[in-house]
């Protein structure tokens, strides 16, 4: 018995051997796609379903990306980027079916068919490969919710700026930042020469020295100069000497603090007794903007280099342990903001045109007026950024719901694929019947839901007991054949029952609550009988 992995080596099949056999996964995908496509066609919501399905598929993709440990920074960045089209397609599909319902092209309630098939599509993405479960959903929720919060905060800036500019007449962005920047420049770059700004000069030069030392250490200077032999390298010795000098910046910085305070608070106390012949040249030297600007520039460059090096190293080391992968998140944020600001406006305009075309003329005109007003008020760039943010928020809501559902038990904690596929198909089939869609596709969707769910449980048991290496294909097909036979019997029974409506029908004055209560009681009884 293996008791301590650190001490023992075991030759055993890998963990992926115990997953459901590939044929089970393939059959499940085929059944979901076929049944879902059929019922979508029957309800006349093919376009909306396809759009929502693409969005749901992208949600599934980003859950996979967020749950991977390999190339994590790239995966996290990709998750951020995929969040926008995922939410966008889901929203677009919902809008399309809503518009179809509004115009009468699709029956009322068709939105539930589209939503159900979207859930089924998401479930399908969780079928192949490593099962998607609670851990993957939680990880995805962390990443996507972080993206949503960051983008909302980012979007608030131009929105607040636009509101304050128009309503109050003050450009917010011009306010505190400009005043602080001006103050810093005045103190550290272009101070007056009298009294001599020794403190700020010392601080600027010390910061520059510290920044230079940081640059030398952070950049691969030693790596390039030191050939790692035992022989002494003159270049490395020179670098060490330079660093030794630059490290004096720290004590200089410590000294600069009190001097700066004195210069600021009581300059006349210090310089009042200094002769003019000393004070003026000292002032001229210490107030030189070029030296100060160079030192401050070194600090800025050092900060940028620190960030870049961190990103480069993070990206190179693929064995990261952090879940959020900060570097990837930063890249994702940058890409999302860039796309939203520079391209989002075009997308918003296109989307608005599409929605307007789907609406009746009067509604379309009203919609266009409102859209143009919003663009005029906030600006197309802000609207584009807000669109990206909104889509990411939608995606985060979807993923968060799934994650919470897996925690409370509404969604299976291990392997959501079959469960969600079945639930989505069942909802689509049930609503399809309710909206008087064609009988065969709707009943097929109901039967397919149960069959897919059953295949999932069967496949999980099979994987756990036999594994992928063991032969099982024939047994799988026999099981599926039995399931299909039952679905034919069930569907045939339903058709026969419906045809008997002409003979026996629901009475119009039947007390529905009584029937419902009776149904509840009967089913509770049957449920207890299924207890072993």
């Amino acid at each position, binding site marked *: 018995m293996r008791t301590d992995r650190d001490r023992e080596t075991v030759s055993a099949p890998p963990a992926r051997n115990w997953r459901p056999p590939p044929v089970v996964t393939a059959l499940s995908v085929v059944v979901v796609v076929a049944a879902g496509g059929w019922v979508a066609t029957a309800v006349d919501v093919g376009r909306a379903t396809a759009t929502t399905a693409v969005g749901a598929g992208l949600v599934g993709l980003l859950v996979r990306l967020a749950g991977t440990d390999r190339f994590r920074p790239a995966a996290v960045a990709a998750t951020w980027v995929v969040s926008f089209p995922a939410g966008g397609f889901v929203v677009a599909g919902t809008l399309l079916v809503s518009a179809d319902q509004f115009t009468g092209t699709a029956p009322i309630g068709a939105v539930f068919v589209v939503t159900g098939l979207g859930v089924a599509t998401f479930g399908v993405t969780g079928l192949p490969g490593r099962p998607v479960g609670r851990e993957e959903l939680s990880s995805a929720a962390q990443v996507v919710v972080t993206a949503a919060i960051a983008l909302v905060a980012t979007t608030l800036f131009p929105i607040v700026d636009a509101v304050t500019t128009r309503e109050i007449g003050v450009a917010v962005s011009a306010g505190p930042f400009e005043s602080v920047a001006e103050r810093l420049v005045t103190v550290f770059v272009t101070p007056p020469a009298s009294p001599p700004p020794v403190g700020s000069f010392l601080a600027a030069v010390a910061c520059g020295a510290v920044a230079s030392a940081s640059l030398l250490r952070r950049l*691969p200077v030693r790596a390039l100069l030191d050939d790692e032999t035992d022989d002494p390298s003159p270049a490395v010795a020179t670098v060490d000497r330079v660093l030794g000098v630059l490290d004096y910046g720290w004590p200089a910085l410590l000294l600069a603090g009190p001097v700066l305070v004195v210069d600021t608070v009581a300059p006349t106390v210090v310089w009042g007794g200094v002769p003019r012949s000393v004070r003026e040249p000292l002032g001229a030297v210490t107030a030189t903007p070029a030296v100060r600007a160079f030192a401050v520039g070194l600090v800025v460059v050092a900060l940028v280099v620190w960030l870049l090096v961190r990103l480069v190293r993070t990206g190179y080391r693929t064995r990261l342990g952090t879940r959020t992968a900060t570097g990837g998140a930063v890249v994702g944020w940058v890409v999302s903001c860039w796309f939203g600001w520079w391209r989002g406006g075009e997308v918003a305009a296109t989307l608005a045109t599409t929605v307007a075309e789907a609406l009746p003329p009067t509604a379309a005109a009203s919609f266009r007026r409102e859209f143009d007003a919003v663009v005029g008020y906030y600006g197309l760039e802000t609207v584009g950024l807000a669109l990206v943010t909104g889509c990411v928020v939608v995606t985060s809501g979807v993923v968060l719901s799934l994650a919470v559902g897996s925690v409370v038990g509404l969604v299976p904690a291990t392997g959501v694929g079959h469960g969600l596929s079945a639930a989505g198909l069942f909802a689509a089939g049930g609503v399809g019947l309710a909206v008087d869609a064609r009988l065969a596709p709707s009943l097929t969707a109901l039967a397919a839901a149960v069959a897919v769910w059953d295949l999932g449980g069967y496949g999980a048991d099979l994987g756990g*007991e036999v*594994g992928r290496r063991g032969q099982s294909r024939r*047994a799988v097909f026999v099981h599926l054949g039995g399931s299909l036979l039952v679905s034919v019997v069930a*569907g045939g029974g339903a058709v026969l029952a419906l045809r008997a409506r002409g003979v026996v029908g629901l009475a119009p004055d039947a007390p529905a609550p009584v029937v*419902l209560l009776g149904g509840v009681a009967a089913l509770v009884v049957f449920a207890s009988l299924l207890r072993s």
Partner: protein
Amino acid sequence: MSRLRWLVRRLVGVVGVTVAVVAAAVAVVPGRTTRLLPPVARLTESVGSVESRLLLAGTAVVVGGVAALLARANGTQTTTDPTLDGRRDDPVEAAAVPAATITGDALQRRLDRVRDTDELDGVADRLRSLAVGVERTTAGVEEATARERVATGEWTADSLAAAVLGESVPVPVGARLRRWLDGSGEARRRIRRTVTAIERRLDGETPQTDGPKETTTPDGGVQQPQTGVGDAHEPPTAHDETRRGDGSDGAHPSARLQTTDDYRTRWRGWLGGTLGLVGLGLLYGSPVVVVGAVVPLVYVAYAAGSALPETVSLRVRRTVLAEQITPGDTVSIRLAVTNTGDSVLSDLRVVDGVPETLGVADGSPRAAVALRPDETATLSYTVTAQRGHYEFDDPQVRVRSSAGSSAATLSVAATGATAVATTPPATAVAVTRAAPLRVGEATADSGGEGLEFHSTREYRPGDPRSRVDWRQFAKRRELVTTQFREERAGRAVVLLDVRPSARRSATAATPTGATYAAYAAEAAVERLRADGDDVSLAVLGIDADAVATPVTTAGEAVWVADAGEDRARTRAVFEAASEAAADRESASRETDVSDRTPPRGTDTAAAALVARCPADAQVLLVSPFTDAVPVSYARRFRVAGYAVTTVAPDHTGGVGGGSHLGGRAAAVGRQLRLRDVRPLCRTVVDWPGDRPLGLAVGRAIDGGDRR
């Protein structure tokens, strides 16, 4: 299930059906139903007085609660046999051994702790000594010259490997930049490149080229590609070790099935779905939706009604496809399962009872099959043989109903082969008895009775007429007697090494080098005995106390002077040696033992052993050469004038074949030791485990010179 419980369940079922029928009747013909059933009429009146929206809301709450409870109760009650659940800690396919007994584990652990290139000193020292040894033996130079070449980087064309082991060799710029980006990754990369460069140099790659261009021997000659020590394997034939007393192969008697696993509760969630559809239909007044609830309900009924057959009759036959099995062989196992009953078994899962210490190398001992009556399914897999006799457990079988809602687990005894056992060493070397008049295989340099011409001498009265050279008499009228080379019984000493350091293997499933060595040594003793030789046995690595019979010692070795005749003592020693060879636990406690220099006292012990050996004996040294001790022994024997032959089982998986860097380095170290011992030996048989033992031992024994 007790009678009372059965009655209660039936009663509850009747109630449920009645309620369902009444509800349906109320839906279809409410007037008639309320007239016939006054309680329903009273219920309808009371419901009618309650605000319908409130009632529907309450019903929705009840429905939702029931559905949620049903969804959460989707469990199963099982008594799952752990054998069938492959995801548990100890599946039948696994073979677990202490990690320290895997070749190269100590070095690999050291490598795993390295975080930056600055921490490579210890590892680099180890690799440097390997590189020096490789350079010395491949180029045929002195130790000092080899050291200098490694220090200056002349030994390899790989600049990075040269820098890692060199003293003043600059590291390439790219490597320095990679170190700046990722220190630990670059450290591992440097070691990997260095080990590969050492392997290439061992193959004979010259430093001026990339990739192996020529192979050179220590004496400067061209080395021919090493062929296998024997011919190709004979095709495997079925070999049944029927252990049953009657050897019968008849049908297994029917077993009455008792459900051990019930998955029906898993389907309760679909009752919630049915309920949802009914509610939706009633809410919208859509009979189509209500009828649609038939679909999940039929599935639930199917699952509830799907039952196991009352009895199941199976015949399971196991076949071991191998005629001769030596340790390390890959043995094919075939399990045929036949449904000898009358019922169709739509879902039958089989897991063979693979012996615990044997690892499955290929295929799977598990299968899920569907069998009609009289149909057979076959599953095949291979295991890596360990020395000894390993019994299979009975296969575990799980029968499921067609819907998979109930299952029964049972063991089924398998006919045919019930064990995997390695062939006795004597059989493995295909011993043949010598002709009665031949007293031995060793030839002497004196003339006398024999078969091979030696010389002629003057005829003496009494010489046999058949030995007179009549042709010579016809020519010269001189009577001359022909003499032949005398054949007399040879002497041999078999020295077996099963010390703890030899109990290493390349993987968890393969036998240790000591196990291979013990097997080969036993085969060699049998072969020598059959040839009529006097053979003595010395074993390093066991205590005299561990042997069942009293034995003497010679230095650190257990000594049996007359292993050919004293069969009982020899057998006891080999049993103790085999047991020790398989004892990985004690071997795992000895780690970080130097494999470059033998421990203090080795020479003294070797000298003591040499003193006990007959003067004219040939020495057969059987050791996996995991460290320098067998080299010391070979050197001591050689100095004393003995002819030494070596059989060296390869426990490392071959050069370049190790699963990690530590194992690859260990393989190089072993090859270096073999190179060191080669000049001391008459023959060195580097025995890869996939070649027949008989040919390896035969080559070692028959490849001797004449005396």
